[in-house]
């Protein structure tokens, strides 16, 4: 579903992402972790077509994000860390705009919009202008919009920012259900507990390189230290003065 094929992205002399090769199959929830400046945002931007790789290719459902961006976008839903809405549109009007943008048939769009409004509990404010929404309301609306067209791949950048505990639960349940149905989720987060709870696999990026790829159990085995805490493992791995994990190429 998602393929990063030897992807490198440079910003002038600085390499933000270096030779990233990664394949995420259908129905997997993948969490990308890493400290600030590790290259997570650059990776996400390349995955949603905002940024072109300097070298290599990014593909979604077989479509290249540079050569065939529109077809690739048809398969992607994206929830950015800073949700953008049209302030002078109501939530319902925004959902219709997105549904129309994806060319959804009228009857299907009507059904899906009603379902997402109910799912994300938007009913109380769906007909108010977005300018009156709180951050949490905005985030829920953007989630609803990103799922309207039932994408093959959902890309989430710090998805839980601004959400209250109830909304977080809704999102978690939804992600679990959708991945079971075959949707691939690519999530960038700093919340280790959520990654541990939800992700099938995780990647840890440090200074543009994927330092670890696998499950939490595999990470424990690889790090060979006596701790069960993901936080401790993560800190060890991302510590610039720490030793390399066993098995990592020099």
């Amino acid at each position: 579903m998602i393929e990063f094929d030897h992807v490198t992205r440079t910003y002038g002399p600085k390499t933000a992402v270096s030779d990233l090769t990664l394949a995420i199959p259908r129905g997997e929830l993948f969490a990308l972790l890493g400290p600030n400046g590790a290259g997570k945002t650059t990776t996400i931007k390349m995955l949603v077509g905002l940024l072109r790789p300097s070298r290599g290719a990014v593909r979604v459902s077989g479509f290249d994000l540079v050569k065939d961006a529109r077809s690739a976008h048809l398969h992607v839903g994206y929830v950015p860390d800073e949700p953008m809405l049209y302030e002078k549109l109501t939530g319902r009007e925004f959902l219709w705009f997105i549904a129309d943008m994806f060319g959804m048939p009228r009857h299907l769009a009507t059904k899906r919009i009603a379902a997402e409004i109910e799912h994300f509990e938007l009913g109380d404010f769906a007909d108010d202008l977005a300018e009156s929404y709180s951050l949490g309301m905005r985030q829920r609306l953007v989630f609803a919009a990103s799922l309207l067209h039932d994408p093959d791949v959902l890309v989430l950048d710090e998805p839980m920012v601004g959400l209250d505990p109830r909304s977080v639960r809704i999102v978690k349940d939804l992600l679990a259900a959708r991945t079971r149905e075959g949707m691939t989720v690519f999530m960038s987060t700093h919340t280790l507990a959520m990654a541990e709870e939800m992700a099938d696999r995780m990647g840890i990026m440090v200074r543009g390189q994927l330092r670890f790829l696998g499950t939490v159990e595999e990470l424990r085995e690889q790090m060979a230290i006596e701790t069960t805490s993901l936080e401790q493992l993560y800190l060890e791995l991302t510590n610039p003065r720490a030793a390399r994990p066993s098995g990592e190429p020099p």
Partner: protein
Amino acid sequence: MSPMSDQPTGSTAQSCRLLSIDEESRLFLRLRAQVAWSSLWSMLSSARLRLSLVILLSAMFWGSLYGLFVEAFTFLDSLHAEVISLLFNAFFSSLMVMLVFSTGILLYSGLYCSPEARLLMTLPVREETIFAHKFQEAIWFASWGFILLGSPMLVAYGVVRHSPWTYFALLLPFMVSFVVIPSTIGSICCMAMVAWMPRLRVHALTACLVTMCGLGLWLAWTSLSSVKADSMSAAWFEQTFSRLAITEQKLLPSWWLSSGLIEAARVGKNPGESWAALGEAVSFLALLVANGMLLQLVAGWLAARAYRLGYSELVGEVPARRQRPIGWFDQMLMNAGSAAGRPLRLLVVKDLRLFRRDISQWSQFVIFFGLLGLYFFNARSFNYNNAYASMIGFLNLAVVGLILSTFTTRFVFPMISLEGRRFWILGLLPLHRDQIVWSKFLFSFLGGLLPCCGLVLLSDVMLGLPRRAIVIHEICCVVLCMGLSGIAVGLGAKMPDLRESSPAKISSGFGGTLSLVVSSFFIILVVVTAALPTHLFLATHAFGADAFARGDWLAWAGSTQGLLASLSAVVTLGFLATFVPLVLGLRAFRQLEP
């Protein structure tokens, strides 16, 4: 699934498809209509006063311009017919250059820096459709000034020339088709520059701007400084306009527009001649439309190839890190005075730094005051006589005040609202809230004082005014700086908009509009109060004490006592305009709950 196929497979296949370009265009048109209707409805329901004020002031502005142009065209009609052509060519060609730059800059911000563009780039929409959507916005913002300024001029021209109805019917198509050409050229340059010259972008833009400014200065200087004839005479106009003949190039769209309009306005001696003139006008319109459409095709083609590439280049740019040591001026300001006043001075220095580092603020300041300085510097070449010189001196004072009022409204009025968003920082500091308001006032007052007084002095010296007039103008200028700062800071603190982060939006709200209107009235009041006795004083000296009947109040107003009384009234007005809004603002700000 075949990656070559244009339609999706999997779960997405059942729910969506790629839109045709017509469908995309219709969708964006509907979006624009929805947003426009919603904005209008919000304004009608919550900002009726502001809307009425905007409509009223625009109508007044339009009407005044129309009256002015009717007078001007009636006068020019007596001159050689080619003068009108030169006037139109000079006006439209300079407008063309301005439109190239303004649309380019607006499109840059809309296409590459707006959150909306970031959203649209992640949706399955064509790049050329996004370009068209943002281009419509840019062209509207870039050209509404032309419509407001150009329409009274062109309507007045048609009325004075007793043009047929077809001229008035063709006005809008002519204006719209003309505006599209420079705007599209600006857009093409913008997209090409971002995509293929990312490193050169800033330097290229700066070089272009500097060249254009230099060219403008040179043109203004050569056109005005070396004219030998008496100012405002027919010969003076002819000499001046002959220097602007450079704008009459047949390959320029401005020439097509002015020629088309002149032909459309022409009344033939017989029906055949009138039809021929109309045919000429329509062929010029067709030329504009055809070129506009061709350029739109080029821009669309370029957008499809360069927009996403440019966007990626821009997102990938890392802002250069610069060490910013504390400047000697900031250091001096921070350490000058008592320890008790230090927090106030620190706040002023903070605002000064923000001003210096915000190019949009100081560049507008430099451009507007620079242009005024250029005009004042050339004032001597107009050879005004004494009666005119005094009046022009006061008009120049009013212009300086009006320019300052636009700055205080645009940049000073939103300062308190913007502090509201950072209130957690200031609120935790050992500061009294009053000090925040006072610091804004001091920043605005002291910041405006030097350039404004300097400009007024330049104007007076160039006009050759006597020392007494210079002193009066300088006192008025200080009063204007003080009052305008008081109005902007006081009303800004009284009516803050703590939710808005854009200073442009804050200043265009009700509070900002009110601040601008009050400021304008204050300027008129100050200038009229000072100007009237000065002129009566000059008249008394020119025509002797018998100019007015003994005991007449006009005679008293024109005496030294009258002059002193008017100055006292000006100073009182200044104190009222400064302290009434400030006291209201301070009270409101003390009780503010962010």
